[in-house]
């Protein structure tokens, strides 16, 4: 049985006037996953999402939503998108915002959107520009979910929220995911927000995909090894080391897929999600710095 792929990219690239924002991206996001899209600022996260919605067209390669390439006549009906900074018409009331959602979408579940607003406790006659950041996010989420998407993409949805509002938004989101079984792609540059929520990971750095896969598989495939630093050179097969760092006498090495290291002085354990992602992002950063130094 083949799994349905909600979002897939192949050789995907986007070049702006200032250079490539994404290049040679390939990944598959299976349906039903809650995926974290992580990467530093400028890694291409927003570009990737804009390509999926059809706001941007790829320079190279393809991106597919449930097998279909984006068209120019609107975003794929199965795709819901919550853009960065959650743009809403500021002078509309909440009720008018939902009316707009209904007017802009042939498949619109008004009862569902109204229920989400009611659960958020946002007064329907309030103007958008009088709402708090948390309330505004809940309204934007209701608009995105009102289309009844099977894939929901959220670009930095928690960035401007206080900790309480973050929890509320994530709880709402996870409750809807549990109820509908939809696929979620959630971007963030703060990993802590996503730990324990996401079961799939997509690491983007320097315009390329560094790592993608189910979180459990990825964690099982990697080992974090700690041992004496003078001993680390040549210990691991080339190609398997993701990142090696030494602080004084102690070396910390993240290895992918290697057999257990049985050597005195070394301890191995499964990395946490945060350790894993940070190691990949740091190694991507170093590679970039080296590349820049060589070309300079």
């Amino acid at each position, binding site marked *: 049985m083949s799994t349905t792929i909600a979002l897939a990219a192949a050789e995907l690239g986007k070049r*702006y006037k200032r250079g490539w924002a994404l290049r040679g991206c390939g990944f598959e996001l299976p349906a039903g996953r809650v995926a974290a899209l992580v990467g530093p600022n400028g890694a291409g996260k927003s570009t990737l999402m*804009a390509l999926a*919605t*059809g*706001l*941007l067209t790829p320079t190279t390669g393809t991106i597919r939503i449930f097998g279909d390439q984006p*068209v*120019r*006549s*609107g*975003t794929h*009906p199965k795709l819901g*998108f919550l*853009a960065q*900074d959650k*743009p*809403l*018409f*500021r002078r*509309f009331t909440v009720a*008018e915002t939902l*009316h*707009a*959602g209904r*007017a*802009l*979408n*042939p*498949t619109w579940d008004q009862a569902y959107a109204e229920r989400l607003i009611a659960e958020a406790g946002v007064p329907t006659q309030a103007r958008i520009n009088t709402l708090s950041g948390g309330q505004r996010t809940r309204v934007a989420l209701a*608009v995105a979910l009102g*289309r009844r998407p099977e894939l929901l993409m959220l670009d930095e949805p928690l960035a401007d929220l206080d900790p309480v509002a973050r929890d509320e938004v994530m709880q709402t989101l996870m409750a809807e995911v549990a109820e509908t079984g939809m696929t979620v792609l959630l971007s963030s540059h703060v990993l802590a927000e996503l730990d324990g929520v996401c079961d799939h990971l997509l690491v983007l750095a320097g315009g390329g995909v560094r790592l993608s896969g189910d979180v459990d598989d990825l964690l099982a495939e990697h080992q974090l090894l700690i041992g004496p630093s003078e001993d680390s050179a040549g210990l691991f097969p080339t190609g398997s080391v993701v990142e090696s760092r030494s602080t004084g006498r102690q070396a910390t090495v993240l290895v992918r897929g290697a057999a257990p290291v049985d050597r005195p002085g070394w301890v191995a354990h499964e990395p946490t999600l945060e350790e894993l992602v940070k190691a990949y992002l740091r190694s991507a950063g170093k590679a970039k710095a080296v590349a820049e130094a060589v070309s300079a």
Partner: protein
Amino acid sequence: MIWVAWRQHRTPLLTTGGLLAAIAAVMTYHRFDMLDYLSRCAVTEQPCAGFHDRYGGYLQLIRLVLLALPALVGMFIGGPLFARDLEQDTHILSLTQSVGRTRWWATKLLVGGVPVVAMMLALGLVAAWALAPVSELAGFARMQHMVFEIQGLVLGPYTLLGLAVGATAGLLSRRTLPAMVAAVVAYVVVLAGVGVGVRPHYAEPVQAVTGVVEQGSDRIHHVETDVDRAQVLMVANSYRDQDGNPVAFSWGCLSAGAAADCPQRTGPITEVTSYQPASRFWAFQSIESGIFAALGAVVLALGWWRLRRRVW
């Protein structure tokens, strides 16, 4: 999308509609008031000399308002039409639903812009009707500059151009303020350029001999004609020798003891005036309307073309 565009733009639309209706009402009132005044002073056979005192202020003001309106509409309706969305990122909200770019663009123009063009067209026709009583008054003869522009068919197309420039500049610059400035500058420059450089040539001018300089004279004798300079659109004065060839004739040749190379030394000179008669008013209105409508359409097409390849 129609509902969204209406909700977004209804406030400026309703405000503009109210304002234009008020202006139309003021002009209607003054039409009947002026007709009444003129008929009374005609019956009593008193000179209607008080007319200027009574209506001069109104006429100057309404001229100013009607001249400024297309620029103001271009600024306040056209400028923010797309630029406000782009500034507040709400275009992303609209374009990530089930609405494509072309539909978004066209609907906003049709709902947020076209009604104002239609209202301005109507206001121009009301103005032509309301100013008819003074259409032969010196300074308000409707073929003349700054009078031709405030009535008839042209107000609609003028507004279309101002609006198109404002909207398209907003689409390209993504900012409201530069779009507003562009609308005003484009309207003023194009209107002045067309009025001075193009409008006099919509049709072959009518020519009439309006003066004669006798051989050896330094005086010009004006000839009685039915050309009323206050009623027509002047195109040019030219001077001809007795064979009808154009000659160079300067004002210096009309001073005592004119230079020996002045053309009247060798024969009589006639002054020929080229003009566009007032009877061509509606024909010229149609031509000018066509020009502005075409320019507006070109600007809109440019915006649409850029929109399709725009990076957002």
